[in-house]
């Protein structure tokens, strides 16, 4: 009853959810949602470059996502109006990527697979890469956790305690680029930010400490992946968007739960 493609899809999704949970918490705490969007949208440009130069999709998206994340970080440091800058960068990189893909000759490119993911088509190779990337991100976050948290709370307090906020920002930037690269095949460029933000936002209602929120976010993400895959098979819906829908349902339940708890 469990086809191998389904097991691969579940493993790929769970791996992504594992890393996206804690990273998504930082995206929520630091109000970096648009920053995540910009980095994810730039991934499409990475896909175009990867196809054009016949290199691995992962290498292309990782490279461009990294470039985008570092650019945005640098601009933010110089005090640009970051909201506007991100809006310009996010959408123009997406548009440039889409235009660039149309120039790639040869095999017809299934654009939808990169915009919305194609989790049911992942290979074992993809699964290993996703788990490798997720492991790297989790290890990085665990290693820097106290500093990351202090810098997120207040850069001044961090600096006064001997934590360098710029270094912690860089760790998050790198982690974000890695997650974008591994997520592109699972949920696609347009929905990566959703996998970061929705599970973390849903976890907020249940958590009393940042650590628990991070763990809950991972768990909620995993549940969303499995439920989304199931729904996708059951109702013959696209897998990536179904996963995000499942996460949104958990968020709605959590918000209702939080609201009830506040009233009661």
């Amino acid at each position: 009853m469990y086809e191998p493609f389904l097991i691969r899809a579940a493993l790929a999704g769970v791996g992504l959810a594992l890393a996206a949970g804690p990273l998504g918490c930082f995206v929520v705490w630091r109000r970096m949602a648009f920053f995540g969007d910009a980095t994810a949208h730039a991934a499409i440009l990475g896909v175009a470059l990867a196809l054009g130069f016949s290199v691995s999709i992962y290498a292309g998206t990782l490279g461009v996502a990294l470039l985008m994340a570092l650019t945005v970080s640098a601009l933010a440091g110089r005090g640009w109006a970051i909201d506007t800058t991100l809006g310009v960068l996010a959408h123009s990189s997406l548009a440039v990527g889409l235009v660039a893909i149309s120039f790639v000759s040869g095999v017809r490119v299934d654009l939808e697979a990169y915009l919305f993911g194609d989790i049911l088509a992942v290979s074992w190779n993809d699964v290993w890469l996703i788990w490798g990337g997720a492991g790297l991100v989790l290890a990085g976050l665990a290693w820097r956790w106290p500093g990351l948290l202090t810098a997120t709370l207040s850069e001044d307090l961090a600096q006064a305690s001997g934590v360098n906020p710029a270094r912690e920002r860089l760790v998050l930037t790198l982690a974000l680029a890695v997650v974008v690269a591994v997520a592109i095949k699972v949920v696609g460029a347009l929905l990566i930010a959703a996998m970061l933000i929705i599970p973390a936002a849903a976890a907020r209602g249940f958590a009393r400490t940042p650590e628990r929120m991070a763990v809950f976010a991972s768990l909620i993400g995993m549940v969303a992946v499995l439920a989304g895959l199931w729904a996708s098979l059951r109702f013959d819906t696209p897998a990536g968007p179904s996963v995000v829908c499942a996460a949104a349902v958990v968020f709605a339940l959590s918000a209702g739960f939080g609201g009830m708890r506040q009233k009661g």
Partner: protein
Amino acid sequence: MTLIEARDLTVRLGGATVLEGVDLALEPGEIVTIVGPNGSGKSTLLRALLGIQPLASGRVTRKPGLRLGYVPQRLHIDAGLPLTVRRFLSLPRRHGAADTAAVLARVSMAGMEERQMLGLSGGQLQRVLLARALLARPDILVLDEPTQGLDQPGEAAFYELIEEVRAEFGCAILMVSHDLHVVMSASDRVICLNGHVCCQGTPHVVSNAPEYRALFGLGTRGTLALYQHDHDHHHDHDHDHDRGPAAAPAKMSEADHV
């Protein structure tokens, strides 16, 4: 031995020179208060000493192994971040439950470990920030307008607490304040800042210095009035303080100086 020393400090922010040629040294156990009008670079000076603010020129020398406890002007916590008092006190370095409980008791917040930071009142938040700074066993406690947003009794209680803590921990205190009346009484030394050090010395010397009076023309009157207010405050008298005999002479002497 001097704890921290700034030499010829110059700081520029966005092209404007905020501090120029500032010298400052802090000895063990001293209470030093920096006063100055808005935009005079008080907070910037603290941030430069803490290493948060890059210097355009000059240098800051610290005693080797110096421990700093910093109480920022305010702390905005994002509503998305669940954080208990206990967890906050352990950022970035973990502290034992006994130490945490003791320091919370010291700032009259005993048993508040499991409370959410977002649910604290302004006064409670200031006390928790002070507790966090004390957990570092600081040689210097650095406070940036620590009583902003507190009402007057809360303010008085907070300054009282700081004096107690100083006596107990033996740390030096470097504080920025615009609450001139409280500052004057509690400090060993007052530094009057307006982009550069205008004057400094004991509270008495500074409050009589012409540079200080030029900067705080109206503020000085407020200070004197408040001092006297503290001494002869009765709830059941019926005259108007502003026109009372205590305030009027101060106002006149002020006019003479300016």
